[in-house]
């Protein structure tokens, strides 16, 4: 099987799985218990938290383990809006956010907050000139993803931060689910206040992720109970998942430059190949993350292509895993004004550093065959 759907989920790294099993075997105490066993387990949990804090350049008490990207995004939207509502009620998100941001923001707008949308250009990159007019003195939260999951477009977070900081006192949340491990991400590199990370996109385990805040930023909980995770995320913290997340993050950053170079070369190779087909239109912008290639075949449904490729053991997806089962067209592609000829035929190839050039070569052979069949040659 040639698996090219790594933005949907990734295969668990054997060392991460090993960590998960070992922690379950040896440190399965409740980290909140006061006996030595609990204490040891808590120490391990703290070490994981510190490792992540070091990676993200924040302090360990600002790292909150969650059940994954969706929960972290919900926590960021509701928790930050709630905490800072005394400053204002205005929230900005981009048109191309993940549903876990969009739906949370929709809910928020029903709770007395005013939510506005930052539009994107035809490349799927937020329009900074629109942002400038949208940011108000009473804007309290701006949430924009670092890399779009459907197109791979890198959003201009640095410029965004500058504008937001100049014009308001709003907090900035960056959904880095698709960028962490493919682009350097931390609180020193980006002037943001909150970062979402998901484990299973970086060869970690499903059902785990985190929200990290910059130092001194505070947040209100959305889950209530025993007061774990400094009261921000009640529920017994899963130490095996937390430690696995820390490990997956460390492994993802090992030789990051080398991994980026590899992804870039695979991506360049694929782009060159795809551009030789007259019916193919590249959707990904020039400024894109190295692991996502989004393209469309004129007047052909994406699903047809996926099935045809799958028969040859090549796995790709339509624009995103979340939306691929829905019949409605992607909000991201709509926001980019992709024409009707192409909008239904969008395919996403998403790579991991464990993919090889041989796999790409095999994909190219299979894709060529499929195209020939479809065109009726």
């Amino acid at each position, binding site marked *: 099987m040639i698996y090219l759907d790594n933005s949907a989920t990734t295969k668990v790294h054997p060392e991460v799985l090993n960590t998960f099993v070992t922690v379950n075997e040896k440190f399965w105490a409740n980290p909140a218990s006061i006996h030595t066993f609990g204490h040891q387990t808590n120490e391990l949990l703290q070490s994981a938290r510190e490792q992540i804090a070091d990676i993200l350049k924040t302090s360990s008490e600002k790292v909150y383990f969650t059940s994954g990207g969706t929960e972290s995004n919900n926590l960021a939207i509701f928790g930050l809006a709630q905490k800072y509502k005394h400053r204002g009620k205005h929230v900005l998100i981009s048109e191309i956010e993940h549903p876990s941001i969009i739906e949370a923001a929709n809910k928020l707008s029903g709770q007395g907050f005013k939510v506005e949308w930052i539009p994107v250009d035809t490349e799927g990159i937020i329009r900074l000139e629109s942002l400038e007019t949208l940011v108000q003195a009473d804007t309290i939260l701006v949430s924009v993803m670092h890399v779009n999951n459907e197109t791979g477009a890198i959003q201009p977070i640095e410029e965004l931060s500058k504008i937001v900081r100049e014009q308001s006192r709003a907090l900035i949340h960056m959904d880095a689910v698709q960028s962490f491990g493919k682009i350097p991400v931390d609180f020193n590199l980006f002037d943001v206040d909150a970062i979402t990370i998901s484990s299973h996109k970086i060869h970690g385990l499903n059902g785990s992720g985190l929200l990290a805040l910059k130092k001194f930023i505070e947040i209100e909980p959305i889950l209530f109970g025993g007061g774990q995770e400094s009261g921000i995320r009640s529920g017994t913290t899963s130490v095996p998942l937390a430690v696995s997340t*820390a490990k997956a993050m460390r492994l993802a950053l090992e030789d990051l430059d080398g991994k980026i170079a590899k992804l870039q070369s695979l991506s360049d190779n694929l782009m060159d190949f795809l551009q030789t087909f007259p019916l193919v239109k590249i959707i990904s912008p020039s400024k894109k993350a190295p692991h996502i290639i989004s393209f469309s075949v004129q007047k052909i449904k994406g699903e047809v292509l996926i099935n045809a490729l799958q028969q040859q053991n090549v796995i790709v997806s339509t624009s995103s895993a979340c939306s691929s089962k829905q019949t409605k067209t992607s909000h991201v592609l709509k926001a980019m004004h992709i024409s009707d000829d192409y909008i239904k035929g969008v395919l996403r190839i998403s790579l991991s550093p464990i993919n090889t050039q041989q796999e790409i070569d095999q994909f190219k052979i299979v894709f060529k065959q499929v195209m020939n069949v479809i065109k009726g040659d």
Partner: protein
Amino acid sequence: MKWEKILVRYGELSTKGKNRREFISHLRNNIRFSFVDLPNIKIQAERDRMFLTSTDDLEMNALIERLPKIFGIQSFSPVASCSKDLDDIQATALKIMDSLDSQDKTFRVTVKRSDKFFPMDTYELQSIVASNVLKQYSTLKVQMKKAEIDLRIEVLKDAVYMMAQVIPGAGGMPLGSNGRSLLMLSGGIDSPVAGYMFLKRGVRLDAIHFHSPPFTSERSKEKVMDLANQLSHFGATVRLHVIPFTDIQQSIQAQIPENVSMTTTRRLMMKIADLVREEIGALGIVTGESLGQVASQTLESLTAINAVTTTPIFRPLISMDKLDIIDIAREIGTYETSILPYEDCCTIFTPSCPKTKPKLEKVEYYESFKDFDELITEAVKSREVLSFPMKKSNDFSSLL
């Protein structure tokens, strides 16, 4: 919030005439010791205050968080700086207010304008900044006297400096300024508090603990190690002397009548502590005894125990109520460890009704039938010495 520097106001040492230089150098060493993990910190000590700076923002934040634990500091304030541009001044003022809990507080702005070429006069700047802050924070109430938030702005030649917080320090004196003592550390609530109070007066500590395996578990020893480690967080290394006490306790059991065995146990502990004290060159012995708390802490008991040595024995908790001691234990974070339910050597052979008023002559008489000296020398010689803060005991690197 990006802070330029931290202004530190000295504690009591401001009053110490000639010794000032020594005190300041102790404080400087303590800060170096406590922040050894923050390599970029620069310390600039002046006669009546100290400035801490770091090129790394995270280090500055860590400093702000951990400075309240350092003895010898009365209070400190994070200071921000900005250019002399009015917009810049306004923005910095708001950023400082954002970093505080600025709801429903009394508030004032104080301006000191040392740069006489600054275009605005003191009152003008004061009112412009104040009205802008009040616009953003409508729940602030202006009050000139004893305002909860006093936003101080100093216009100097090079830049404008601003601060709003005066964070209380731990008080006391910098560690090392008052010599060394030996703390008798049992594992209960009181002794760590006694140790803390002496640390706070600038006394360096060694600790001594009596361990009776197999009657007392490894865990009760670990608990004491934990406590010693917690004490070391207050700014200096703490050495822990663990005395093997089983043989001595058993021979007390065999030799001394049950109702005074407790007194003898304490006397022998004190003798051992005194020998260790002499060896390490400490000047006094510190205990967590509090008058009347248990049978060994009545005036009669204390007198009988005290009779084994002429070394000064300090009992900082002697007249304190238990509840007040517990409050301090909670505050310094030793309480949770202290209440862990492990047997220690004081509880395993507890007689059913120990004498609360032991007679010294009688105790001495009973003890005269047995020569404990050899056992004592042996115990002192074979003690285990541990040093804290300990390097991380658990290595999780294979998992992470």
